[in-house]
């Protein structure tokens, strides 16, 4: 354990004093010994912190940490005793009355909920021990996630408890320290998530209306997407309300002609793309594709719209193709170019085309035996399309 490397423990053998007392014939000496013991106990643990930097490995990244150390007395009912040295931290920047939790992304330094936790097994050798400037641990500020990013007031609590339980505390102390958190806070993430949800909702309804028609099946897809998303959250009523209002406002704006699908799409894609969160971007695009597929027909306007969204979100071609394959069937398209329908990139040579077609044939051939008749039927249609293109290349 790094915290204990180079440990400088000054353990004063207070317990020895008991023997001294017992042996002492001099009552004055005994009284002095008892006073010293009491004084030591009253001190409890003084916790102190200092900023430091560690390196990942030689020449690696410099990582900021806060070193924690304690001084004071630890009195236990019997000795030697197996105990646990515990460190807990809370964020009191906004309120000391309602402190907020701090999470740690290092699994070994967090509990099952992700909260920072440091527990270390120690043996207290004597009935009464005193420590001075004993290093306890290094708080990994680089790996902590608080409510918000930046400088935070953090209360650091150190306790020595009986091993295996925190019911009996033998010694404890605390201090407050300022720690600079580099990671975006969870409250900020929650706020951003809410904003992203509204953006995705707006984008989806804009795509839904891009063919000039809002279909119940499309709205059902949007509702399902958010319902599933919120089902995993403990308290999502505010988020549900927010998304519902956004959807209704956007529908109203589009139906009244105050907003156009293309303008909304351009604006929202720019906003979503600026965040550089590819998971959000991919989720948004997948929802758009599902919305387009919901009414079993892909209007040319919807096709253009999807292209706009894919480009706007700067999504990789492979992802776009895989998403289309999952949700769009060729039969949904009124008109679609053969090469475009199977996702063949433009500008390929004849040999590259043959290679691409072979790959696509291999992929869809395997899907043609799928148990879901919808998947199998789509595979058959695509195989026909691929075969036709290959035949044309042979003729050429």
């Amino acid at each position, binding site marked *: 354990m790094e915290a204990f490397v180079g440990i400088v423990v000054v353990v004063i053998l207070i317990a020895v004093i008991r023997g001294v007392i017992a042996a002492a014939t001099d009552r004055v000496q005994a009284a002095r010994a008892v006073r010293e013991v009491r004084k030591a106990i009253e001190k409890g643990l003084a916790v102190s912190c200092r900023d430091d930097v560690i390196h990942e490995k030689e020449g690696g990244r410099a990582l900021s940490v806060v070193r924690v150390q304690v001084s004071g007395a630890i009195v236990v009912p019997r000795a030697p005793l197996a105990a646990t040295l515990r460190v807990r931290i809370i964020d009191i920047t906004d309120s000391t009355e309602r402190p907020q939790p701090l999470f740690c992304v290092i699994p070994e330094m967090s509990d099952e909920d992700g909260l920072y936790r440091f527990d270390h097994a120690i043996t207290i050798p004597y009935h009464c021990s005193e420590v001075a400037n004993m290093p306890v641990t290094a708080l990994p500020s680089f790996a902590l996630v608080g409510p918000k990013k930046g400088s935070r007031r953090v209360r650091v609590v150190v306790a020595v408890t009986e091993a295996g339980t925190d019911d009996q505390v033998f010694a404890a102390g605390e201090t407050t320290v300022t720690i600079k958190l580099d990671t975006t806070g969870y409250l900020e993430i929650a706020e951003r998530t809410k904003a992203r949800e509204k953006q995705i909702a707006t984008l989806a309804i804009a795509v839904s209306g891009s063919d000039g028609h809002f*279909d*119940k099946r499309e*709205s059902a897809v949007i509702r399902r997407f958010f319902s599933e998303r919120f089902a995993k959250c403990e308290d999502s009523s505010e988020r549900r309300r927010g998304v519902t209002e956004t959807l*209704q406002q956007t529908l109203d704006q589009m139906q009244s002609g105050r907003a156009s699908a293309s303008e909304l799409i351009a604006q929202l894609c720019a906003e979503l793309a600026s965040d550089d969160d*590819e998971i959000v971007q991919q989720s948004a695009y997948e929802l758009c594709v599902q919305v387009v597929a919901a009414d079993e027909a892909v209007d040319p306007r919807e096709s253009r719209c999807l292209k706009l969204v894919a480009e706007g979100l700067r999504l990789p071609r492979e992802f776009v193709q895989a998403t289309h394959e999952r949700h769009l069937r060729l039969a949904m398209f009124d008109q679609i170019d053969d090469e475009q329908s199977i996702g063949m990139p433009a500008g390929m040579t004849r040999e590259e085309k043959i290679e691409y077609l072979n790959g696509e*044939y291999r992929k869809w051939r395997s*899907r043609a035996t799928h*148990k879901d*008749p919808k998947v199998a039927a789509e595979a*058959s249609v695509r195989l026909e399309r691929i075969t036709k293109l290959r035949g044309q290349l042979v003729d050429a």
Partner: protein
Amino acid sequence: MKAPAIGIDLGTTYSALAAINPAGKPEIVPNKEGERITASAVYFQPGGSVLVGQLAVDAAQGDPGRVVRWIKRKMGDAAWSFSVDGEDYSPVDISALILKKVRQDAEAVLGQIRHAVVTVPAYFDETRRKATMDAAAKAGLELLRIINEPTAAALAYAADGRVRGTVLIYDFGGGTFDVSIVNIESAESVSVLSSEGDHELGGYDLDLALAAHLDSLFKESFGVRLLDDQRPAIVHRTIAEAERAKRRLSSMMTAPSIALNWGGHVLNASVDRVAFERIIKDFVVRTEMLIDNALSAAKVTPEQIDAVILVGGSTRIPMVQRLLRDKFHKDPLKHVNPDEAVALGAAIQSAVIMQGRGLLDLPGTVGEVLKRTRLQDVTNHSFGTISIGSAFGRQCLRNSIIIPKNTPIPCSKTDEFQTIVAGQTDARCQITQGEDEDPEFVNTITEGVLELPPGRPAGCTIRVTYSYDANGRMACEFLDVESGRQKRFELDVRGPQTHRKSQSDERVNFDDLVIE
């Protein structure tokens, strides 16, 4: 010989049975009608008796509603059944009737038959293989092994002794297409390098395409269609005429006098080879793409192919032979009858197994050669399990392939996975078949739950071992390494899933946008 060594080619349009003669050579055993191949057709006669073979095909002319053909295409389809006289017959039941017919006819010549090797298309999946095994059992056969059709054909050619080296087996049958790249070292050593196929691509598809062409000619002339589901007898007759024309076009440039008639209208149509080849071109192109894939999987170029072997009746089509000649710059071999090669090879494999088990007693060199004969086949699909992986930067369910397609069999492969969360008390074990990484596009063959001890951290190792036997069947084990708990699987084949229903087409109002 103690008992006959039998190989059966259970084909889409025709089936054949071969046996090993006392000299150790495979030979076709004709059916009781004297035909070397038996039509895979079943006629349920009024009164309850059943006819199998050409008589059933003939009966279809007048009574198509009681005749089943091309049943091989329905193998493994749990939802399909043929209902007649209040009885439902599954594809397994009907295939068993065909197997029983060829077995009983051969018994009249060879005496009692108990054991056999039965062939399946290389591209048959687990469901279809299992259905074929069930059909054999139902026909009273103790199945020694099921082997892939092109592999059986390779054995027949290997035994024939005139082919050695890297060989491409082009098996274009009545209902299925397979292509295998095989290394024939000697009569005693045959190993498959790769296999590809399509069990919805065969001569029957060409018949249907040509029938559709004839139908359009008839409609042009008389304004009525022949291929109308309401008139099954006419549909049947039109397809039969198309098939006859197809056969003639293999040796003639024009198939004249194709008699089409219905409702007092008579048309003597003709189709020339150029038109026919235009009609079937897409099918032939599909076989070429599968060839390319098989070559690529075997890491072999067309120039490295020493011989091309033709198997299956559809290889008689000149366009097919031309394609192969152009691609490989050599004449395809057909000195073993394309209709019989598979059954002959299956009989050899049967003799190899029986000799090994002491069920057959071929004397001298022949017996020794059989004992030494080694056949190495490959898996025709990839098998895997569903685990947490990542795609396009996000964590999601992925299909992790454990036994990749074209792995030599028998084989056993092990992979390790970790539990995801602390305190995880069970692991879902799914066995998938398919090459896709996306679980959406693979079939789950079977699944179950491995119960895990409580109170453990995340990251406990689950060791997954898949074993694939020489019959092309699989066993799987999921083992929790720490506790020793395991889940073993016998394959439980699931029926096909159903379509989702279409929803309404009403317009949206605000209430439709309330998230619940």
